[in-house]
């Protein structure tokens, strides 16, 4: 018990101290934040080693360690360290709008809140941490840029509004079961409308946090104006972990879902994958494009969890972890590119892959792109492969009506993967290869490239040794928290280690072919590019931004994109329109005419008297 309190207190106190350290002593604040996050990481490691247990506090079982949240705390702390390390060099020292010392406070408090949220065993306690995280997100979005107010407000309204629904859901649960302790609640949505309402309320909270459609719109809006490390920490990793954590908890522990409800969840997952990735393909801003992928990937996790069979669920949870890894890697890389070039506009970037550019960032970005597109043997492939397995298993066991849904989702997921690849090819071209006069940009500081490369390394390790490391220690044991077990052994499965060895063997063959050609007298020479004998003017170049113009111009897509540009699909704008309509209707009554006000007061009083005294 003490350990959990220390775990929550250390980042909190370190954050408090950071807040009072004067701005000039930034180095001290940075070192303190780093030390605090490393201490948290060490403590989470101890938690990871403890067996599942409940903790008493004030006579309530407030916290609980089980096989599911054990490994999550480890990764929350890891992302914390990497982002803090990255931030120390990311923010310019001289800039007027440079961050306040409250930045590190907010980051540390976010870590603390996320840890508390994952470990909480009481729904109210979880909600408190959950809401606190929304607040730090609101602060962090505005930490560096003056024009981020609107985006921050939108984020706060969507995330905070979904919190209100969660309170409603928790209240219904309390009415139905008389307890708020998560490991004691078990409801079925099949026979009770109230339980179904409670589930949907909590699920909306999870969707808003993780960014599933239609509650995703805050992510693309906040991404372009928010500092990259903040996106890497919150929407890209912690919010995903928490949102999917809650979804898994409610759909697997707290409730047992009826078949139509799982089908509905799968439908949301499939729509999220396809719609978000189509939006990503046409973006012109690096961070905005990445943020649409942050939305799209949530679809895979929901799909995996909704399959309801062990392979699919394990795949969904593994995908959640993988996505947090490569997505924060992307945003850190994006931050480095922004820092070096001063822009995230894809039309203006280019030629960063070479030695004079940013080779380390390129390597990290490329590996992460391969992971997110599900190219074997990287980690994204393994989790997607498991989700597909889950969908196919569900297809084989389901009744004909649900068979079709499973098939549609399978096609959507696989096609979504191709679309993801396409938009990352566009990104890679626009950032790293677009023809441009070489400006000697140089690589970023080690504090910045080290987190990127570490995360990229994790993408490889979790892919190549998927069954030996992450699945064995993190994912498969976590299934027991839902009383599930992966049937059959892992021997007949895809063996990424072997496949990688074989791929390496063939790469060696390739090297041998090269060596053979050198022994035949071949040499490497640099030469000017050939464009039909013409010399290309410098202002004429292919940036890659319009690679998919042909697809965009297809009539149906053209119209849909036009509607999306007008924010027709944005639930926030709908809400705004409804609120404004009400407000304008009410405003009509405010004429400033005293008689009308008086008449209204008397009418109101009469109604009240009638209601309360009449009975």
């Amino acid at each position, binding site marked *: 018990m003490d350990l959990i309190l220390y775990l929550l207190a250390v980042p909190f106190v370190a954050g408090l101290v950071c807040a009072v350290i004067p701005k000039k002593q930034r180095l001290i604040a940075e070192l303190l934040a780093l030390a605090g996050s490393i201490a948290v990481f060490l403590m989470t490691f101890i938690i990871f080693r403890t067996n599942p247990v409940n903790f008493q506090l004030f006579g309530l079982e407030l916290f609980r360690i089980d096989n599911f949240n054990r490994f999550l705390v480890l990764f929350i702390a890891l992302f914390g360290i990497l982002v803090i390390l990255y931030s120390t060099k990311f923010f310019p020292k001289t800039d007027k709008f440079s961050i306040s010392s409250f930045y590190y406070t907010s980051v540390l408090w976010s870590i603390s809140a996320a840890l508390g949220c994952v470990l909480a065993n009481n729904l109210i306690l979880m909600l408190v941490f959950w809401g606190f995280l929304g607040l730090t997100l609101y602060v962090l979005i505005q930490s560096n840029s003056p024009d981020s107010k609107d985006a921050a407000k939108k984020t706060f309204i969507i995330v905070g509004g979904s919190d209100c629904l969660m309170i409603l859901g928790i209240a219904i649960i309390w009415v139905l079961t008389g307890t708020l302790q998560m490991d004691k609640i078990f409801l079925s949505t099949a026979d009770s409308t109230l339980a179904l309402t409670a589930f949907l309320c909590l699920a909306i909270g999870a969707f808003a946090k993780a960014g599933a459609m239609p509650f995703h719109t805050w992510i693309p809006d906040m991404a372009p104006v928010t500092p990259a490390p903040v996106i890497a920490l919150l929407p890209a990793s912690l919010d995903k972990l928490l949102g999917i954590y809650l979804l898994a908890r409610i759909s697997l522990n707290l409730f047992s879902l009826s078949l139509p409800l799982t089908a509905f969840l799968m439908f949301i997952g499939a729509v999220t994958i396809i719609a978000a990735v189509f939006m990503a393909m046409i973006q012109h801003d690096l961070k905005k494009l990445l943020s649409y992928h942050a939305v799209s990937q949530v679809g895979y996790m929901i799909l995996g969890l909704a399959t309801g069979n062990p392979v699919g669920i394990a795949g969904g949870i593994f995908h959640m972890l993988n996505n947090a890894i490569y997505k924060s890697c992307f945003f850190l890389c994006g931050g480095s590119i922004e820092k070096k070039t001063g822009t995230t506009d894809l039309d203006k970037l280019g030629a960063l892959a*070479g030695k004079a550019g940013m080779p380390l960032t390129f390597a990290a970005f490329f590996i992460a792109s391969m992971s997110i597109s599900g190219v074997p043997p990287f980690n994204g492939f393994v989790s997607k492969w498991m989700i597909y*397995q889950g969908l196919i298993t569900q297809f084989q066991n389901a009744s004909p009506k649900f068979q079709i849904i499973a098939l549609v989702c399978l096609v959507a997921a696989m096609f979504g993967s191709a679309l993801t690849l396409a938009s990352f090819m566009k990104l890679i071209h626009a950032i790293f*290869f677009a023809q441009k006069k070489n400006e000697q940009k140089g690589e970023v500081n080690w504090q910045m490239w080290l987190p990127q490369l570490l995360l990229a390394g994790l993408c490889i390790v979790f892919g190549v040794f998927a069954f030996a490391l992450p699945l064995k220690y993190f994912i498969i044991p976590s299934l027991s928290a839902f009383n599930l077990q992966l049937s059959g052994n892992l021997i007949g499965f895809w063996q990424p280690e072997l496949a990688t060895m*074989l791929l390496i*063997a063939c790469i060696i063959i*390739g090297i041998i072919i090269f060596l053979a*050609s050198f022994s035949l007298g*071949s040499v490497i020479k640099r030469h000017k590019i050939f464009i039909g004998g013409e010399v290309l003017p410098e202002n004429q170049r292919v940036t890659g931004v319009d*690679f998919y113009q042909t697809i965009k111009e*297809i009539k149906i897509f053209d119209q849909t994109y036009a509607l999306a540009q007008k924010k027709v699909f944005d639930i926030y704008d709908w809400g705004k329109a409804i609120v404004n309509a009400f407000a304008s209707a009410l405003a009509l009554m405010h004429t400033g005419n005293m008689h009308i006000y008086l008449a209204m007061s008397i009418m109101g009083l009469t109604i009240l008297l009638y209601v309360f005294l009449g009975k």
Partner: protein
Amino acid sequence: MSTFFDYLIFPGFLFSAVFGMLAVYIDRKVSARVQWRKGPPLLQPVYDFVKLLGKEISVPEQTSVFTFLSAPVFGLAAITLVSVIVWNAMLVPGKTFIGDLIVVIYLLAIPSIAVIIGGFASNNPIASIGASREMKLILSYEIPFILSILTVIIKTGSIRMGDIVTYQLANPAVITSASGIIAFIVAILCIQAKLCLTPFDIPEAEQEIIAGPAVEYSGTPLAIFKLTKWIMLFVLPSFLVALFMPSADFLYNLLKFAGVLVIIILIKNTNPRLRIDQAVKFFWTYGAGLSLIAVILALIGL
């Protein structure tokens, strides 16, 4: 150790390289006969390959040399792995692993990615345009390709290639059913696009964008790209044979492969090239529609 033998000798690298060269020989010979020419000798692909090895390797200025030179190698490695999985499924159906079909579908994307990245790293606008066309082509054929493979999955009830083969050895082959034949037709068209052959040779389109992604390649990296293409010409038709009409006999499988190959070559020689937007529309309407019909037919058991 036997795995490495599988991978490097049979049915891996050496086997698929030899048969890939044979396939490209058949391609050139049949094309020549269609065009009333004599055609090359049997060893022509070998001559081409060795000649390229001796040539100077030219690398464009201002680009990442490592990316430029290593891109072809990754494509070759992936397609070799596919060859092992596909042929092992037909030779020893019991030895395959669960879900290898999905692995094959994803590995098949890597040679295309290699071409795209190689094109990007050429630092040449023409190569970039070619690479973007290749990517759009992937997008366009992906849906019909997945749907036609789904037909096979529904028919045989498995995503394990070994089971798919064994099922068809015990029962009639998938291609003999109504849904199977439709799915097969769609799959052949997708293979045509995957192989970048007319009418879908849009990314290379020699007459407009001088071989697109390959425009800056020469010498050894070009040789490896060519070898990858040749192996694909062998592996992709054999993949269709394994999915739609496998037989227990190795030689029969090779014969069926040759049959599929000739169909592909005839399509190539009798069609003009499409524009990229036409190809996208074709695959997303007719291709997807046809394969959807196949899936529905398979679901109702035809």
